[in-house]
């Protein structure tokens, strides 16, 4: 009888430690959906770049018209927004199911720690675009996003750490294959999200 109480105490301690330091309402499904959005985005970008009459092949490689650049930016922003909105909605749903609040100390910390590397990378990339150093944009988006995941993983499900590491590796690899940027982008943001999201969904959400 006593033993049962001790075991209960230990469970309670573990539960409290996790609950107070980690945001566990992140849903695997939002990862899968974000990956699908990214793949759709990559497909649209591919169409924009390679099947656009205004795009011409110059001596120094592909020259993308300003019209297409704007279109690409629009695609990127739409993918980002759709992913964030989906993530928020699914997290609220999951939190409700677990009888928890979404907006607590743990989730605040998760967002701040995710945003710091991501915003750093975002500004860095914007400055590069401004200076027209466009070559390294694909590797840099992947690397900074991966680092953001790694940094945030301390405050949420551990799997996010491995997702981050995988994406950083893909980002580093893509530095050597600049011309295949879009492919790496689809692999990192699309396929990785779907894979890890599915894994997390099977592991935590299906119960």
């Amino acid at each position, binding site marked *: 009888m006593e*033993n049962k109480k001790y075991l209960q105490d230990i469970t309670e301690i573990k539960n409290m*430690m996790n609950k107070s330091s980690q945001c566990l309402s992140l849903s695997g499904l939002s990862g899968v959906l974000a990956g699908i959005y990214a793949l759709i985005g990559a497909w649209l970008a591919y169409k924009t770049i390679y099947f656009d009459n205004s795009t011409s092949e110059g001596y120094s490689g592909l020259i993308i018209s300003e019209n297409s650049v704007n279109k690409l930016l629009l695609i990127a922003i739409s993918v980002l927004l759709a992913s964030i909105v989906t993530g928020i909605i699914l997290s609220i749903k999951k939190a409700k199911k677990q009888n928890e609040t979404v907006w607590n100390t743990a989730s605040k910390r998760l967002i701040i720690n995710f945003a710091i590397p991501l915003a750093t990378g975002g500004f860095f990339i914007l400055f590069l675009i401004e200076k027209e150093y466009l070559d390294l944009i694909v590797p840099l988006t992947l690397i900074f996003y991966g680092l953001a995941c790694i940094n945030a993983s301390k405050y949420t499900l551990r799997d996010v750490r491995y997702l981050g590491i995988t994406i950083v590796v893909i980002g580093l690899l893509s530095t050597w294959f600049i011309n295949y940027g879009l492919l790496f982008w689809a692999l990192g943001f699309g396929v990785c999200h779907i894979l890890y999201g599915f894994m997390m969904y099977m592991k935590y959400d299906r119960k």
Partner: protein
Amino acid sequence: MKNIIQNINKAFDHRIRLGIMSVLMVNESADFSTLKELLGVTDGNLASHAKALESENYITVEKQFIGKKPNTRYIATKEGRIAFKNHIDALEKLISKS
């Protein structure tokens, strides 16, 4: 067996006190409302259990104002951390004994 029982700390022998310490072990500090929400307890209940831990010197209380709102933060002391660690070790030993 007797030695282990000695390490079971009476100060932690309550769900709410156990909860407060667990939260403070993994967080630098926690404010009153966060603890209240996490543990699902009433104001008075939380305050009295926090007071009990404070009088044992296991936690310290910091009161300050954020704007016009009073804010109470709790922080585990070194002493409290050691005591809680011993308590967990004792619990684990007791469970594995059987």
